[in-house]
């Protein structure tokens, strides 16, 4: 009998709020974290992005520590701190810690020094965060471009199933930096207005920053959701663009559904990647149609948070879990008129819905894709 795996704690730190309830309340009101910024230290020209204010970060962090940490480390510690405390899980040899990120403390490279260079290492970032909480196991870093956050859930599920660990805390995080802004801009992938996933007039991504944290556990008593299938298949097609047929995403979803032992028709909601680049959104629509998933209600949360890179998959899972447990489908913000060649059922406005199974997907540079299927947990009344 393979062990069952649950997510029992969630948290997120975003421009919309520093806990899950404040984020949900902002989404329900239709607020977006994406704003126009004029900051020459980040970009030579004005740009749209979803950025967390330094004053808020420092005010929140002062309450838990006075030790010096990088901005991203503070955001990660803030995401993890309440769930570690609340879970009462012992940080022993059966509790692992996964950190997922695309670029970590890359901003440290801006000023050339040995200390800064050392801090740009992802294992150093992970050790700094792990040491704050005194984890006993060596931190595991997943750095697989923009699927990192959701891939970490998949890695955690597999390790718990194999009984290597009983509990795994995951934190995912990335910052808006000059490094990443200039790169997406060089690719001409940046939108000149807040991003519009799946829309006809979409022109690219808005970048964002956030951290999210969850506890993945073999113990289901306080479960918020059950993890029932997962897969991460490469397109084997191109390193900087998605497969035109959505092959890797198609196969990832197919495998995840198969492991979950459910049919595509049983998926009640898809929390998709939806970066709002022309090619990504088109590829997703093609993959979903190949799987006969075109009728399932779908959203991209990038219109609220921008593309938070390695954090996005985990942040969007945290929000999707609330969708399920609050029986509510959230609007795909920024969507107006369908702009992909094949039909998909984009959620126009918030609506009530019973959700039993949902699918989370992500795709990224390097041709990577991840799909994870979740099932709502029915708690017996005692």
């Amino acid at each position, binding site marked *: 009998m393979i062990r069952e795996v649950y997510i029992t704690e969630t948290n997120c730190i975003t421009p919309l709020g520093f806990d899950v309830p404040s984020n949900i309340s902002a989404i329900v009101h239709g607020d977006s974290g994406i704003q126009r910024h004029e900051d020459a230290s980040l970009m030579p020209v004005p740009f749209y992005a979803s950025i967390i204010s330094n004053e808020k970060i420092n005010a929140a962090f002062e309450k838990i520590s006075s030790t010096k940490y990088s901005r991203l480390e503070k955001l990660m510690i803030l995401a993890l701190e309440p769930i570690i405390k609340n879970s009462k899980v012992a940080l022993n040899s059966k509790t692992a810690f996964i950190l997922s990120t695309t670029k970590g403390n890359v901003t440290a490279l801006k000023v050339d020094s040995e200390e800064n260079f050392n801090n740009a290492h992802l294992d150093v970032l992970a050790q700094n965060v792990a040491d704050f909480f005194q984890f006993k196991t060596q931190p595991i870093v997943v750095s697989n471009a923009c699927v990192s956050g959701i891939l970490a859930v998949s890695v955690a599920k597999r390790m718990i199933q*194999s009984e290597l660990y009983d509990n795994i805390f995951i934190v995912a995080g990335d910052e808006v930096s000059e490094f990443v802004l200039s790169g997406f801009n060089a690719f001409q992938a940046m939108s000149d207005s807040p991003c519009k996933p799946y829309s006809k007039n979409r022109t690219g991504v808005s970048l964002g920053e956030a951290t999210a944290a969850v506890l993945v556990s073999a113990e289901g008593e306080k479960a918020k959701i059950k993890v029932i299938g997962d897969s991460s298949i*490469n397109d084997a097609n191109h390193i900087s663009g998605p497969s035109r047929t959505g092959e890797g995403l198609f196969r990832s979803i197919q495998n995840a559904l198969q492991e979950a032992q459910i049919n595509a028709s049983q998926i009640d909601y898809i929390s998709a990647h939806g970066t709002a680049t022309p090619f990504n959104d088109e590829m997703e629509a093609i993959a979903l149609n190949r799987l006969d998933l075109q009728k399932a209600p779908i959203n991209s949360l990038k219109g609220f948070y921008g593309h938070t890179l390695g954090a996005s998959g985990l942040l969007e899972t945290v929000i999707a879990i609330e969708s399920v447990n609050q029986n509510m489908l959230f609007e795909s913000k920024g969507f107006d008129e369908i702009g992909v060649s094949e039909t998909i059922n984009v959620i126009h406005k918030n609506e009530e819905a019973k959700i039993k199974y949902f699918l989370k997907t992500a795709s990224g540079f390097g041709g990577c894709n991840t799909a994870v299927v979740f099932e709502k947990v029915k708690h017996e009344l005692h």
Partner: protein
Amino acid sequence: MTQKTYIQSYITIQNNEIVLNGDSIFKIEPTDFADFSKQAYRHFEIQYPKFFKMDALSKLAFLGSELLLSPLVSADQENNIALVLANKSSSLDTDVKYQESISDKDNYFPSPAVFVYTLPNICLGEISIRHQLKSENTFFIFDAFNTEFLSNYSNILLNTNKADVVLCGWVEFFNDSYKAFLCTISKEENTKYKNENINTLYNK
């Protein structure tokens, strides 16, 4: 239900030398990695011009996987070979070069061709494209080669039938200092390395 898994083959690339299953198959006089990798490419008569567009980390991972996977992969069937690689320096070698291209505002030339390699998992994409592997792939970062973790994780992929073979290992590149250790693991019995594990082979 956990089935035993076996190391099938392994390769080490370091100090201007490539060692396959314990045998030195290519060694040249000390030179830089750009030259070493070009000479190795020619020596093994690899026909893949995209190689020359790759960054050093991808070249290193590519060369190792080329020699391990070429005998395994056949073009006329699906090859479910998962890729599980790790290192310490992520893509920092290219990150530093990219950062230099944006640091001087009077000489600001961010290049998409460089930016795309500022992700460690790009080398997994390169190997996947080369061998048409539509398979599981994950890139991990550790402060040192965590052989226990990679071995456990590879066994999970094999035992849950998410892969038939796993190519796993360590591909570290920074500032012309490099070491690659890759091995293939599967459930097929192979007594050749029965007294060895990834750790002992890596440290050979």
